[in-house]
């Protein structure tokens, strides 16, 4: 963003002010995540930077909270992590299947009542989570699925499908339907056409929608708070109780692991997005 040499002084000043504002906002966005890293290696029990840490004294750092996270007595994180992964994986699979099918239908130009149906399918993303939580809890309690893994998985499918619908519809919007017609004219049946032609082309969209669904489920706490029993505790529930009761550095160790996980997911989502744009012929 070099300025042309003829720029007047006041615009030059304004330009630097603008850069300063942007720097501040980027810092505001990203810096809070980084405060967690060093504190999770704190040798002490307090959640503040000790004198030793400020002086980079090696004794002030330790892995004790990571050890506590993994081996700690009566620690809930193992069970929570297991539950979180099981629930998120099944919720993702369910969201992908239902969401992709719906997106295929919605992208067809023959689809009747497209607007209202789309609005209904997206609504779980828009309706405040607390309301979704109350409604889903009433339903699950009635059919006897409260405090079961199945109930939580179903709830997370509800919350995850809008993301799959949105990403897959977006991918399909640039989809060249003549390729499926070509396949059909060459004698392929619809299922075969879908598996061999359509799916590989929309796969990046499907996977990135799946990533959204996975993160939604993995990070979801409001609905689970209503649904979960002691057996169904998840990582977000444990963090929620931890943050409400006593903020221990073990939570920061878990948080660090979660930030690493989200970085990995971000990288894969970005790679997929670029691949999808390449496949759809969008050059940038």
């Amino acid at each position, binding site marked *: 963003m070099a300025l042309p040499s003829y720029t007047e002084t006041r615009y030059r000043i304004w330009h630097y002010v603008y850069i300063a504002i942007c720097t501040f906002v*980027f810092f505001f*966005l990203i810096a809070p995540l980084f405060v967690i890293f060093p504190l999770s290696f704190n040798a002490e029990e307090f959640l503040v930077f000790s004198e030793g840490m400020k002086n980079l004294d090696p004794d002030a750092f330790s892995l004790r909270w990571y050890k506590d996270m993994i081996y700690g007595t009566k620690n809930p994180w193992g069970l929570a992590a297991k539950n979180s992964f099981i629930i998120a994986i099944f919720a993702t699979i369910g969201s992908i299947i239902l969401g992709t099918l719906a997106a295929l239908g919605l992208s067809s130009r*023959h689809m009747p009542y497209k607007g209202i149906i789309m*609005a209904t399918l*997206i609504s779980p993303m828009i309706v405040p989570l607390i*309301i979704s939580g109350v409604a*889903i809890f009433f339903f699950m309690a009635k059919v006897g699925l409260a405090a079961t893994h199945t109930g939580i998985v179903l709830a997370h499918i509800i919350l995850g499908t809008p993301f799959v619908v949105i990403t897959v519809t977006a991918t399909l919007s640039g989809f060249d339907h003549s390729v499926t017609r070509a396949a059909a004219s060459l004698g392929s049946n619809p299922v075969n056409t879908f598996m061999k032609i359509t799916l590989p082309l929309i796969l990046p969209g499907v996977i990135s929608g799946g990533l959204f669904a996975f993160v939604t489920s993995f990070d979801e706490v409001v609905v689970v708070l209503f649904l979960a029993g002691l057996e169904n505790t998840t990582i977000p529930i444990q963090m929620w109780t931890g943050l409400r009761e006593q903020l221990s550095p073990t939570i920061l160790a878990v*948080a660090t692991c979660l930030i690493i996980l989200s970085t990995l997911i971000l990288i894969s989502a970005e790679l997929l997005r670029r691949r999808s744009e390449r496949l759809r012929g969008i050059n940038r």
Partner: protein
Amino acid sequence: MSSETKQILTTDGIPLEVSLKKAEKKNKIKAFLLVAPLLLFLIITYVFPIGEMFSRSIDDKMITNMLPKTFKEMEKWDGKELPSEEVFTAFYYDYKVLVKKQEHGKLGQRLNKEKNGFNSITKKLFRQIKRKKIDESISIKEQIMKIHKRWRNVEYWQAIKRTAPPYTMSKYLKGMDMYYAADGSISQVEEDRRIHRILWLRTLEIAFFVTLFCFLMGYPIAHLLATLPMKYSNLLMICVLLPFWTSLLVRTASWMILLQQQGVVNDFFVMIGLVADDNRPEMMYNKVGTYVAMTQILLPFMVLPLYSVMKTISPSLMRAGKSLGGTPFVAFWKVYFPLTIPGIGAGCLLVFILAIGYYITPALVGGASGTLISNQIAFHMKQTLDWSFASAMGLMLLSGVLVIYWIYNKLVGVDNIKLG
């Protein structure tokens, strides 16, 4: 063209129009069948339960079923003077049935919600019945009136009469700090007890200011991201996307650490001499914490729609504006800014919708002065177990959100929502 148009036939001999319609219909059904599983799933597990919330919020059948005889007798009562002997008798026999079923406690609690002081007088009546002190052969009215002076107060009988309809709007009125007065008219609760109205206003206020802050902070960086060369903007985009993908609880936790009294932000303020070391301001468990944390958490939802709109604006437009004699500010204000309005609308509505229903962050960093309407709903769901009131408040919030959603749909279109 001749007046008689020749019908075009397909090779099968069917008119083309009919054949085409048939094919269209087949395609329509095919498309619909693909959507059907998800639509059905959502209707059963999501749309119907929200409808059930509505019936729960207005439901008042419990008491209607508890006092069938009383309400029948009360139909004849004008509701001004103390009711007749028959009403007292009917109430007595209804109550006796409840005692036998051990449901009299529920009735007392329900009536107590209608009028304070009911629980104790029904308990007194219960004790009299248990000790078989009430002689059914003489006037029951006289005996009940002797149990406690409130039974002689017509307001208590009016309160019973008000509970007669199987449906009630009282939960919605309570959500707006109103109630049915003794004569059945709608009244406001006293000024110092209007907690819900404060919560609604605070929710709107916080949602509004968070949206404003997100806009003020998001616009410049979205502009920077859209105008920088790709290789730099991709790198900076990570600053927006990493918080977006990171767990909400992790981000809230980091704000709790930063904003605490011995936290990094306060350390920094002390260092630059803004505040004294022994006078560190409380930034958490109040509105400041809620504003700061929610703005950071919702900022990506503002930046992404703005960015996707700004990306489509050609830089030559600004150059053209300047070459026609506009200063950079004029060119920006007259050319660039109007073109970004769709993005502003999308971003602001999205952030506002998300902010108005926020729960987790206000509950953790908000303290008492930073809690929102969602926290109140959760409180009634989990603590007081007044589920019908929670449902009523939820639906009031939902109707507000749906109006905004509708506007959003009109302005932006739900199928134009972009992620990442």
